[in-house]
């Protein structure tokens, strides 16, 4: 399947008009030399064959645009940033989303519930770059609590993680609230209550699992969402992650970079979806691994 994906993206990228090496003052001789260097003078099928051969060795090629940098290096250097940012965002979103969802399910109609519902709807309706700029301006420029941009200390990570997580947080809160409401009056909860179990225990042991189910299914698409979210958030907060590379490689027509990152993203998503399936089985007592 990954092969098909590689093939399709390889040829789609070849179809893009334009020449990655065109620049302001490129000499005619230079163009030929560079084409030969990157093997672009060979027929397309041969380029494809070579690409696959290198790929099998785990080699994604050399960037056409950033001098003497390989795609592998770029991924190795910048993926940790994106991963770190993404994980922080997901953890924050799940923790805060679940918390808000559960509590507002118990306090239906109260102020906190209203707040959660407003947050849930607004969070999904406002683009993350806008959130990014807004909190950057408020917390960094106006209040001076946190640094504006970059990713060098813990303080630097707070704003971008929050900007990236808000959309997810909102969705999670919404789903958690809905599924908690469904189970609040379930028979087994009443039974547990009658047995004199503490409220905390009921919530954590009996209800949370049910509330978690729909959220686990959401995680798959959410990883993808985080991925595309990073394109924008990394730009706003000047984080040298993969998302920003992806956008610049598109405007630069850095074919090998676009290819390499696309394959990487896709592979990553496949793995993530598998993981989500595993987690799903672990969380849902009704599904047994057979």
């Amino acid at each position, binding site marked *: *399947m990954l092969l*098909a*994906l590689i093939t399709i*993206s390889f040829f*789609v*990228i070849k*179809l*893009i*008009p334009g020449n990655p090496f065109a620049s302001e003052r490129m000499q005619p001789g230079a163009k030929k030399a560079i084409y030969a260097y990157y093997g672009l003078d060979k027929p397309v099928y041969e380029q494809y064959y070579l690409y696959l051969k290198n790929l099998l060795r785990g080699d994604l090629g050399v960037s056409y645009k950033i001098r003497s940098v390989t795609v592998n290096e770029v991924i190795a250097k910048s993926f940790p940033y994106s991963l770190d940012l993404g994980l922080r965002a997901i953890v924050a979103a799940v923790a805060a989303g679940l918390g808000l969802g559960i509590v507002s399910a118990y306090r239906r109609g109260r102020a906190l519930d209203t707040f959660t519902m407003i947050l849930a*709807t*607004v969070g*999904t*309706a*406002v*683009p993350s*770059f*806008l959130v990014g*700029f807004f909190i950057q301006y408020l917390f960094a420029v106006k209040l001076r609590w946190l640094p504006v941009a970059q990713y060098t200390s813990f303080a630097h990570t707070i704003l971008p993680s929050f900007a990236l997580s808000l959309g997810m947080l909102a969705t999670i809160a919404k789903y958690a609230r809905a599924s908690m409401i469904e189970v609040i009056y379930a028979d087994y909860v009443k039974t547990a209550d009658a047995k004199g179990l503490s409220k905390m225990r009921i919530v954590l042991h009996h209800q949370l699992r049910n509330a978690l189910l729909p959220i686990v299914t959401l995680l798959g698409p959410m990883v*993808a969402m985080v*991925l*595309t979210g990073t*394109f*924008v958030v990394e730009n706003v907060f000047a984080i040298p992650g993969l998302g920003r590379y*992806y*956008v610049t490689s*598109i*405007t630069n027509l850095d074919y090998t970079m*676009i290819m390499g990152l*696309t394959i990487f*993203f*896709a592979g990553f*998503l*496949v793995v993530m*979806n598998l993981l989500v399936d595993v987690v799903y089985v672990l969380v849902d007592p009704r599904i047994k691994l057979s």
Partner: protein
Amino acid sequence: MTQPGTELDFTHVGAREGEADSIKRPSLGYFQDARRRFKANGAAMAGLAVLALLAALSLAGPLAVPYNHEDGDLLIANRGPDSEHWFGTDDLGRDYWARIWVGGRVSMAIGILAALLQGCVGILMGSLSGFLGGKVDLVVMKLVDFLMAFPYLVWVTLLMLVTGAGLVPMILALTLTGWLTMARIVRGQILTLKHEDYVVAAEAMGASAARVILKHMIPNTMGVIIVNLTFAIPAAIFSEAFLSFIGIGMRAPMTSWGLLVSMGMKQLYSYPLRLLIPCACISLTMLSLQIVGDGLRDALDPKLRR
């Protein structure tokens, strides 16, 4: 997830009917009933009203002022809102009110057309796959799985780079990548419906596959389809905004909300209104479509039928 028309629901309603001999309320069709319940949902109705307002403004807004979206007067460039230019003017002295609502037309057109096309392709593929089963099902589902593994916006971006900017390429790119969810959902529905008595009956009476699908199965999955469509529209509008943000959007002098947002972004600190207005439009649209979608789902859910 809701699954209207499952056997469980059917028996449930049946048990109720057993209680009463007389018909207690006028017999309502599925959609009549849904409409009634939707109307009772205050939030959803409010959402619908906002949507209607935005749509009306997009259609009629530019007509209400003596300016259009492309002709500007440099002498009045960069003005704030006043009685002549309700949203001020942009850096070419073009009326921002006109630009916002012309942009609204484009964004809504993209949202609606892309969602509809995605819907058509998704329904076609989903129902074929679900109904025919076997090899076709295998192939289609493999294709769906495969495309889903690809980051969706990455796909769209690559396609747009090949075709170049513009309304039609964008809708096509969004369609090519957006039909997957719909196909999956429709297939799931068809698979459940396949063994319903009325389908078996229709088949037994010699109805063609096309007739069975079109006359019997699709109408019964309509609820889910409609709900899915209301969620596909904001997704398409958001995608358009994202593509504009990374620089592949509409062709000049056409404009769209996404484009206005990305232009406003650059001037965020110089002319904040230019960002806030189109952003508010997009957010309001997203918000109300979601609320309406939720409302529709509740309304169309047979489980909640009283």
